[in-house]
Structure formats: structure tokens, C-alpha cells
């Protein structure tokens, strides 16, 4: 078979992998989402874990995945599962939380209607919950697709120690072609990939338009907790902080007549359904406790299996890890600020020019889905000379930041763009009317008015920037014998330790990294999010009965 048909097959294989993983995320999301709204215990565990894992960048899973799938399962299946799982962790959290939020915000009258008609579990899902979740799934599809393609390039081929593992796909094929210096074929592969990505994005856009047109609600029906889904991590941890409160709540709930008991006492015709509900509740609680148990047991087994000498070894490297992490946070800050500024000024400039906006958004959507690691070597080869002339010693940093930017910019861009689009027309008219200048508009209205969107976008941008850094900080022989390698950086250490087969140190570095990310998320992101939702919701600026 010629190389071109192989490229087409490889691109199709990667695309199929992406769609399978997205499909799996949606299916499991529906199941877990439904159990969440039926079982409080499951909901608390599910949402808390989702929040934690969502804030930990996908690359933190890398060493764990390698240990689990490559070492324990091994062979073709192990490598394939490792690749799929990495992509899965890149897309699943957004989809799961989106479906959960959709299920939690189904309007009460619709739930009452379906309860009234005594629909069973599958019918409820089929006729109410699944259709209702479609617009949110549609909204998440293109970002998830982009994410998946980005990570498929990283996960289709990886090296541990002296062994290189790869699965069949366009990512692994491009890596091989680059190594062999077959640049013509690299460009053909990129072209084929571009066509497939363009087609997929087009289909996804069509589906999104269809899903939103068909399944969106356009009514004044009261929707419970539409604005803010309570942040369950805080709720989950609250009993630890205030155990007495939890105990009081438990006994109060025991005393209060619940709907289930009322059904038992008076409304016999409910009893059959109530039994089903109770089973689901118990099942949900059991699954939640099982997940918690597995996490606690695994952590405990892992910790006890490490010898004293090993503890000393990993502790002796901890300072270096933290130091390298500080470097990376500085890089992430530069990427985030750069992305924010570009996103703000570009989206503000295009939002009132419909044709330019439509064109630019389509281009950005395709570019976003086009995995940066695939075309970066070409960009590097073409621009290295010029960049080196101007940046000198900072050339490596420039390219690291550039790859970080290319792999993560669109998150904040989409958010700010949507935020500016959401500004009510009355406010645009008022700004025109008051003769406000460009920077006055940005300072007094656009920046504060899009803050909730900016924080969401910034969080995703920061989380995804790590993926870009992981590739850019240590990329040996990127092109023509040149390499990208920073002097300090945690992502480089993770790369190096994984490459050297030192999975213990890589896992420890991932663990420390995750801790920092979670603390950052709890202290900074969540507070900013709360502040923005409390004070900066521009839609609340419009008072209409």
C-alpha cells in the first residue's frame, strides 16, 4: 500500500479514536449525571472528583497511565488503552460536568410533567434528560474535539526508558516522517489531517446548530439553580470542617417527613416508583463509596509500598521539582496574559463586524482543532533563523511560549468572545449614546462585564498551557538536528524522567504538581469565580419584569 492511503487511514484512525472517546464520555456522562440527581452521596463524590480532575491538567496523568496500562496490561492493547485513556482524560470532565449541569437545571414543570405521566428510568432519559442535555453537549463538542486531537498527537507515540511505544494513527505517523526527514510526506499528512479536521469541525458545527435549534428551551419556565451550580467541593469538605453541622442535618432529615415516606403512608400508587428511586439512591451511594474506597486503598497501598530509601530519594528531589514548577508558573503566566490580551482585543474588534467575525471564528475553530504539535516543527524550521536573530538567548523561551500560546489561546478567546456577544444590546446602545471611547468601553464595561467568562476561559487556558509546555520544554531533534530544551521547568523534568523510565520520580512530581494546581484552583480560581458571579454578571444590569 502506498504512503498516501496509509496517511488517510491513519488520519481516519485518529479521528475515529477521538470520536469514540467523545462518544464514551457522553454515554457515561448521561449515566453518572442521572445517578447524581438521584443520589446525593454519589453527587457529592462525583462532582468533587470532577472538579479536582478538571483542574489537574491531563499531562499529570501521564506517568500513572504509563504504569497502569503499559506496564501492567502491556502489548498492543495496553498501548492502545494508554493512548485512549489520555485522550479520554482530556475531554471527559467538560462533558461530564456539562451533562450534570444540564440534568440539574431541567425546569421543574417538565420534571413534574414526566413524573405525572409515570415515565420509567429509560423513558425519562430518552424524552427529557438526554434531549435537554443536547445543547450543552453541543457547546462542548468542538473544544473537546480540539483537546482530543491535541493530546492524540502526544499519546500515539511515547518513550519510556529505551522502549518506544506507538499506536497506529496520524500522530505517530507524522512523528516517524519527521524523524526520517520526509518533509514532502509530512506536508501531505498535514494536508490530509487538515481536510479531515475541517470536515469534522464543519459536521460538529452543523450538529451544534441543529441541537441548539431543536433542543434549546425558549421560555420563561422557572429553572432551578440556573445561574450557578453550587460548587460542590466546598460542600463536600464542609462536613470535615463542621462535623456537628452534618450530624445535625442528618438527624433533622431523619425526623422530617420525606417524600418517600409520605408516599408510603398515603399515596400507594407511588410506591412502585419510590422503590425504584430508593434502589437508585442506594446504588449511587454504594458506587460513590466504592470509588472513594478504591482511591483511599490505592493511595494507602502505594504509600506503604515505598521503602524508606525511596522516600529519601524522592524527598531529596522535591526542592528541584518546586523550583522548576515556579519557572513553569512564570511561563504559564506569560502565556495566559498574552492569550488574554489577544483574545480581548481581537474579539472586541470582530464582534460588531458580522462577516469578519463569521470568517475568523471558522478559521480559529479549525486552527484550534489542528493539533499544534503536528505543524509546530514546520513553523519552527521556517522561523528559527529570524527569531534567533532578534531573541538570541531567549529563542528557546520564545518557542516554548509560542507553542503554549498556540495550544491554549482559543479557550480564552472563545470565552471572551461569547462574553462580549452576551452583552445586551441596550448596553451597546448606552455606550454609543454616552460617546464612550475605545478604552473607556473596555475599562468600564467590557472588562468587568466579561469577567465571569474571562475567569472560565483563563482557567482552561492555564490548565491547557501545561500540555503545550510539556511538549515544548523538552523536544529533542525537533527538526534538522535542532532541539528545544529549557534550562529549568517541571514539564521538562516530567518528560526527562518518563523518557528515562524513572516513573517513581515522575509520579511524585505529578503529585506535587497536582497539589499546587488544586490549591491554586481552590484559592484563586474559585474565589475569582465567586466574585465575578456575585458582582460582574452583566445580564443582571438589565432589569425587566
Amino acid at each position: 500500500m502506498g504512503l498516501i492511503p496509509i496517511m488517510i487511514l491513519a488520519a481516519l484512525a485518529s479521528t475515529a479514536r477521538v470520536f469514540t472517546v467523545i462518544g464514551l464520555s457522553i454515554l457515561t456522562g448521561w449515566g453518572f449525571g442521572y445517578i447524581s440527581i438521584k443520589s446525593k452521596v454519589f453527587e457529592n463524590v462525583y462532582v468533587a472528583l470532577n472538579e479536582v480532575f478538571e483542574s489537574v491538567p491531563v499531562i499529570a496523568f501521564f506517568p500513572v497511565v504509563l504504569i497502569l496500562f503499559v506496564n501492567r496490561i502491556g502489548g498492543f492493547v495496553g498501548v492502545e488503552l494508554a493512548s485512549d485513556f489520555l485522550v479520554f482524560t482530556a475531554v471527559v470532565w467538560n462533558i461530564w460536568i456539562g451533562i450534570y449541569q444540564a440534568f440539574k437545571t431541567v425546569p421543574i414543570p417538565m420534571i413534574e410533567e414526566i413524573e405525572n405521566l409515570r415515565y420509567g428510568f429509560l423513558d425519562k432519559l430518552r424524552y427529557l434528560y438526554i434531549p435537554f442535555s443536547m445543547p450543552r453537549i453541543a457547546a462542548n463538542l468542538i473544544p473537546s474535539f480540539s483537546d482530543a486531537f491535541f493530546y492524540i498527537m502526544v499519546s500515539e507515540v511515547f518513550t519510556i526508558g529505551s522502549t518506544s511505544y506507538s499506536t497506529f494513527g496520524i500522530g505517530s505517523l507524522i512523528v516517524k516522517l519527521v524523524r526520517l526527514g520526509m518533509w514532502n510526506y509530512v506536508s501531505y499528512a498535514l494536508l490530509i489531517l487538515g481536510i479531515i479536521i475541517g470536515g469534522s469541525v464543519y459536521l460538529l458545527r452543523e450538529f451544534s446548530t441543529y441541537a441548539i435549534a431543536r433542543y434549546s428551551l425558549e421560555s420563561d419556565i422557572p429553572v432551578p439553580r440556573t445561574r450557578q451550580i453550587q460548587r460542590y467541593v466546598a460542600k463536600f469538605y464542609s462536613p470535615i470542617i463542621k462535623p456537628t453541622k452534618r450530624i445535625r442535618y442528618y438527624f433533622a432529615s431523619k425526623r422530617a417527613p420525606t417524600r418517600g415516606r409520605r408516599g408510603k403512608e398515603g399515596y400507594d400508587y407511588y410506591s412502585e416508583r419510590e422503590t425504584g428511586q430508593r434502589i437508585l439512591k442506594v446504588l449511587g451511594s454504594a458506587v460513590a463509596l466504592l470509588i472513594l474506597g478504591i482511591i483511599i486503598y490505592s493511595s494507602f497501598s502505594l504509600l506503604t509500598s515505598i521503602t524508606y530509601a525511596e522516600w529519601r530519594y524522592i524527598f531529596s528531589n522535591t526542592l528541584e521539582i518546586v523550583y522548576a514548577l515556579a519557572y513553569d508558573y512564570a511561563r504559564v503566566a506569560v502565556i495566559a496574559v498574552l492569550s488574554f490580551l489577544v483574545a480581548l482585543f481581537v474579539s472586541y474588534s470582530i464582534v460588531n463586524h458580522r462577516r469578519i467575525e463569521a470568517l475568523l471564528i471558522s478559521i480559529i475553530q479549525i486552527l484550534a482543532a489542528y493539533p499544534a504539535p503536528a505543524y509546530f516543527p514546520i513553523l519552527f524550521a521556517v522561523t528559527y533563523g529570524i527569531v534567533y536573530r532578534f531573541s538570541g538567548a531567549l529563542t528557546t523561551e520564545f518557542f516554548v511560549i509560542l507553542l503554549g500560546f498556540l495550544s491554549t489561546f482559543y479557550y480564552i478567546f472563545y470565552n471572551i468572545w461569547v462574553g462580549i456577544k452576551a452583552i445586551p444590546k441596550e448596553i451597546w446602545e448606552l455606550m454609543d449614546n454616552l460617546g464612550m471611547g475605545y478604552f473607556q468601553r473596555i475599562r468600564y464595561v467590557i472588562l468587568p462585564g466579561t469577567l465571569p467568562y474571562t475567569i472560565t476561559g483563563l482557567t482552561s487556558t492555564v490548565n491547557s498551557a501545561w500540555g503545550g509546555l510539556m511538549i515544548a520544554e523538552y523536544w529533542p531533534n525537533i527538526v534538522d538536528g535542532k532541539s528545544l530544551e529549557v534550562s529549568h521547568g517541571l514539564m521538562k523534568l516530567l518528560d526527562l524522567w518518563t523518557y528515562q523510565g524513572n516513573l517513581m520520580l515522575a509520579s511524585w512530581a505529578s503529585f506535587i504538581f497536582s497539589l499546587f494546581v488544586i490549591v491554586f484552583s481552590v484559592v484563586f480560581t474559585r474565589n475569582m469565580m465567586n466574585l465575578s458571579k456575585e458582582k460582574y454578571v452583566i445580564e443582571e444590569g438589565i432589569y425587566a419584569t
Partner: protein
Amino acid sequence: MKKIIKGGEVGRVLEAVNIGFTYGKRKIFEKISMSVGNGRIVAVVGPSGVGKSTLLRVLGGFLRPDEGKVLLMGKEVTRPTPKIMLIHQSIVTFPWMTALENVMLGLKYRKLPKELCKAIARQMLEMVGLEGFEDFYPKELSGGMRQRIAIARALAADPLVLLMDEPFAHLDELTAEALRRELYKILFNVNSTLKGVILVSHNLSEVVELSDVVYVLNGRPATIVAKVEIEMERPRNPRDQKFYYYIDVLNDTLLYKGEV
């Protein structure tokens, strides 16, 4: 039915000369000529969807007319200007700004010193009856109070004309009535540079209570089918016979659309 059709008034502040507007392929209104004179409140009434709000936006320079022109003190209006301030049907305040900061926004284009801006904003808030609420955020205030902030912000911009697009539509009747009673005093007080007001409404009592001249808009595309002058002393009593008479006149005019 008595319809008083008269020519334009002396001392026109804002004037529409034979204007028309098309949205997509649909002609919304055509051949509209109207004006607002010094110290007068002009109302535009008409059934829902006839194009009242669109007309207001054309008068304010937010939309360009396809035909004719809009003149402010004799000069053509080509874009929005703080000299013609629009007050929206849905009350607009910025949730992250206090009442005072919201009003100060109306002064930004004047590039005055910050302290002076504060002083003027305070004065405007006092004028609309919100003294003591300067540091409150909009969500801590009622709908009526928020609309007062919007009015104060508009007046702070030193406008010559105020365009009010159903300004009481989202207020409960008691609040709306209280605000209506005070409105004339608020708008045409000694500290205000305001010369005229154009009010869009489909509430005929409100129109009779507030305005000096009423233009009735009807038909497809809409045209002015009648101009009614309200000749009553202020403050106007809704129980007055004459009040009922004007409501009847407007009702009849609206029912017999296009038959001027």
C-alpha cells in the same frame, strides 16, 4: 373624533424630516415628519410591533434612516450623541458600579475632574430622589430606583433631548405612577439643560398624563396617522373629564388606523 393636525412648532429642538426606515426587505415606517419643541414632552403611541422603538432609535442616531433626515438644533444627526440620550425599556444599570458610579458614567465624555464629576453625580441623584443611596449597588435597589439611576445618568450627560422607550413598562403600577408624577419636575428643573423629551408608550393614560403632543403611529409600513395636542394644565388629574376625553381621542385614532 377631534384630531388637531397642526404644522411644526417654533423653536424645534429635534426634528425628523420625512424619514423612512427599512429592516431587511420590510419597510418599517415611511414619510414621518415630527418635532419636539422647547420644554415639551412629545409622545409616540401605536400598537405593538408598529415600529415605535425603531423610530426612537432612528431619532437618536442609532439607526440611519433610508430616507429623510433627523436634525438636532438644525444640524443633521448621523450617529448617537450624548446630546440625545436614550432611556431603555429594560432598565440598564451596571451591577459592578454603585449608584453614584453609574451616574458618573454619564459624565465620562465631558472629561471633567473626578471630584466635579462626583459632585454633579450626587446632584443628579438628589434630583431624582436618591439622596443617601449613592453607595448602593443596583441589585440592592428596587426597579423604580434603578430607573431613577438611569434617568440621573442620562441627565448627567447634559442632553438636549431625552428619548424614553416605554420607561415604566417594567415597573409595577404604584411605582410607575409615583415616578410619572415626579418626572416633569425632574426633567425640566433649573439644573437641567434638557429642552425636550420624546416618549414612546402604548399606555394611553401615561401619555395623556405626561405629554404635550402625541403622534399616533399606525399601518404597514407605519406612518403618522394623527397628531393630538394635549391642552391640559399640569399636574394632570387622571379623573378629570378632559383626561378621559383625550384617552378616547387616542383610542379612536388607534382603532381607525390610516384614516386621518
